């Protein structure tokens, strides 16, 4: 029940935030007196939504495993992001967001995007009005990877076949799409500020929607689509192809249990692992599969 509420809240919050990103297009629908207030509302709305969603998800994420994985992976993300600023904006952080989101679900992916930005901003000292927008955009990238259709993973023991490759191909396609979309939405809210007034591609609150759209399209094309976004798409593709299979396996080996779930009393006796995942445990044991088969137990107490 609670989980469904959270889903609705997340979807609603994201929708509102999307409206905040797209404020330049909404402003023209407002009465003239209110137009000047549109950017200010957007600038207040997006950070408030970040706080609201963080508060909503916080309680749900309050298990040791989730907190530890979120912390450690966002440190990796921040390191990747900071290392990337030195080499002409080769942003590799999407690789991590997409793979982790895929392995651990939409909520985890969303929070990882949010925290990665928070950690890197805190280290680099880059907090600003843009931070909440970056958080949302990165959060969406992570969450989106989890919302892609499920591909049945092959059973343990069988040779790795096409399904694993299919999943990587899907993630690569998603990585390319999200690289361009990320640039697009980040340009959208900032466009009126970046260009200012007085140019032909300036945002004009009173102009028809089509004209504003055309101006924006040209702006985003010359600003990032042809340059940064393309570099990002290429980096993400290479990254997912090279490290994707191994990194996904590593993440999935560390299964994220459902938070707040009580211990299992009924013992599973099926012969296949649920979800086809790989079991992990801390010992040096080669695994339960190596234990000798046992005689059937009296089933009365199962």
């Amino acid at each position, binding site marked *: 029940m609670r989980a469904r509420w959270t889903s609705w809240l997340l979807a609603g919050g994201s929708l509102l935030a999307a409206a905040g990103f797209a404020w330049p297009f909404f402003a023209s629908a407002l009465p003239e007196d209110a137009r000047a207030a549109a950017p200010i509302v957007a600038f207040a709305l997006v950070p408030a939504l970040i706080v609201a969603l*963080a508060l909503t998800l916080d309680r749900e994420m*309050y298990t*040791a*495993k*989730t*907190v*530890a*994985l979120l*912390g*450690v*992976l966002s*440190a990796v993300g921040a*390191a990747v992001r900071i290392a990337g600023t030195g080499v002409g904006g080769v942003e590799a952080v999407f690789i991590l967001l997409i793979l982790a989101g895929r392995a651990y679900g939409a909520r985890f992916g969303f*929070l990882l995007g949010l*925290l990665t930005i928070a*950690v890197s901003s*805190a280290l*680099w*000292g*880059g*907090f*600003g009005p843009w931070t909440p927008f970056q958080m949302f955009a990165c959060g969406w990238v992570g969450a989106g990877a989890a919302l892609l259709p499920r591909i049945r993973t092959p059973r343990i*023991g069988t040779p*790795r076949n096409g399904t694993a490759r299919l999943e990587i191909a899907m993630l690569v396609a998603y990585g390319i799409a999200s690289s361009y979309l990320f640039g697009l939405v980040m340009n959208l809210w900032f466009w009126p*500020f970046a*260009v*200012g007034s007085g*140019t*032909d591609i300036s945002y004009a609150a009173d102009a028809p929607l089509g004209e504003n759209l*055309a*101006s924006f399209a*040209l702006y985003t094309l010359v600003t990032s689509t042809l340059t940064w976004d393309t570099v990002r798409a290429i980096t993400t593709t290479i990254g997912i192809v*090279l*490290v994707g299979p*191994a*990194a996904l396996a590593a993440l999935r*080996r560390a299964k994220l*249990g459902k938070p707040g779930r009580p*211990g*299992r*009393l009924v*013992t599973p006796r*099926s012969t*296949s692992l649920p979800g086809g995942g790989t*079991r*992990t*445990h*801390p*010992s*040096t*044991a*080669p*695994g*339960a*599969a190596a*234990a*000798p*088969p046992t005689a059937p*137990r009296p089933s009365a*107490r199962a």
Partner: protein
Amino acid sequence: MLRLRMAPLRSAALLAVAFVALRVVYRVVFGGASGGGAVLLDLPRIPLGGPFAHIALLGPVSTGGLWNAAQSALPFSAVILAFGVLNAVVDVRRFFARGAARGPLRALSRSLVIAWATFPALIASVRRVHTASALRGERSIPALLVPVFEQTVERALCLAASMESRGFAAARTAPGVCQRPVVMTDAALGFAGGGWQLEGLTLSLAPGTLTVITGSTGSGKTSLLHSMSGLFQHFHDGGQHGVIEVGGLDRAATPPRETAGFVGLVSQNVRLSFVAETVRDEIGFALTVRGVAAVIVEQRVHEVAAQLQIEHLQGRTVEALSAGEASLVAIGAALISQPILLLVDEPLADLDAPARGRVVRVLDRLAHEAQVCVVVAEHNTREWESAADAWLEIRGTDVRTLGPGERPSALIAAERAARTTARPATPAGPAGPLAGIRHLTVLHGTELAVDDVSFELAAGDRVALEGRNGAGKSSLLRAIALPSARGSVLVAGQDVSLLRAGARRAFVALVPENFDDLLFAVTVAEECSRADRQLKPGNGPGTAARFADLLGLGAGIGAGANAGAAHLMQQHPRDLSAGERLCLVMAIQLAAGPRVLLVDEPTRGLDPRARELVGSALVRASSDASAVLFATHDRDFARSLATKTLVMAAGRLTTEPALVRP
């Protein structure tokens, strides 16, 4: 909360200037830089068509137009600068450090604290893996990134287990009954799909006793231990059957975080389980997450430190601890909430003899003076003989309880093995020197780790390098495998420092202590074929066959002749047992046919059977790779295998290469 950093201010200033410049550029390109003042450039206007009909490129540029553009950007630049000042002055990290203890953003704040604490470990991990990929002769991106990533995830899990067992995120604290620390009634443990691993567990442990769980690697020692801590049922998705009661509570229904008040846990990898940055915070963590007042926490930390005689460590950062000190700090962190039951997982694996003795004495005192019920999982049985009251011996799926007077079979077997193998190994044939180490010196910062070491290796040699923790054994092996000074390492007449990474491996190869760093494929088969790619054609059998050979499974593993071996090939390398993993890494390192194979601490964390496996693998490798040099502080192991022994202390060799001492 406040401090001054110049870097954010500088970057904000740069950003503000770039912002102004960009606006000017946009105006010039998109026809807005005219208006007022002198015309600087009279560029033609180029109107666009289609949906872009309202846009024209370029146009005349005037001073007034440029000034207007720059001026219009000033307000937003001021905002950027203002945030730069804020970033320079306010330390956000402190806000989150406070938020992690209590408040509505506890989980995310704790994640952020962990993230910041992870950075040093991340850098160390990158450095380690960088060395490892140099050792394997790999320069691909996955070779570097995948192990770092694996280590990061592993660290996260260790952290999580340690936080969980210390009461993190507990909704309530369950009260435990002192008189009955552990009672198991016809319990069984197993993982989904694997059948029962342990069955028929009926036992009861009393306060004031020390019990040692013994059994070979992979027999389920850790599972049994964690069925008491609750991590097995609630964290590792293990299945339980029957009744396990800890402190009178049903373990299957009570997660570890709720019993943190009376169950203490010291995990296998103490360094990976450290949650805080200083020793003081680390020991006090369990009380802090419970919301105990800071004054009381400090008082308790002081008491525990005094009890363990580690008061002098309190102010240190956890990274500055030696292996033995780290174990004691982890024990202190488990003792902070005055547990009835203390569970310790393989505490001696990483320690040298003096540190082992100290840990055993501490746990002995806790059990027999402080009346704690102490349970230790360990395959180093000999050290515990004086302290243990009872043994739980795992044999197959059975657990046998041995009372006072009885001794576990592993102990007897180990003694027999030590007696029978204490013979001088096959004497080396009369061979000329194969490798020469000349005046090798390694500096760590200003500290001399290896001090002017020289010795020679002959073909067919199996040389044991002995010495205490920190004597410089690992530094010496690393320096031989990756020499930097010219002329310091000569193998078969070749100066190794002059070779490129790929070529070097044909002369000398190292299996490092953290041998897992060399593994980064998803299956064993992939790992082997990757190693084969570096193999010169006609250079002996493939890596898969060599791996099978080292394991004593015989050749033909690749062809799938042996069903067990074929199954092994499809597994994730990290799902192999420690002994099997070590053999895999040795097979990979032998792929290039090195004349000298170096192995660092081959027996660390291995049970007697796995040690035997690795020992015979080393013997097989020495015929392959002309000479083997291995570092160890396991004297029995060294004596049973080595043809020569070198002893190292404080960076120097204390004896010349000599025949094995009796």
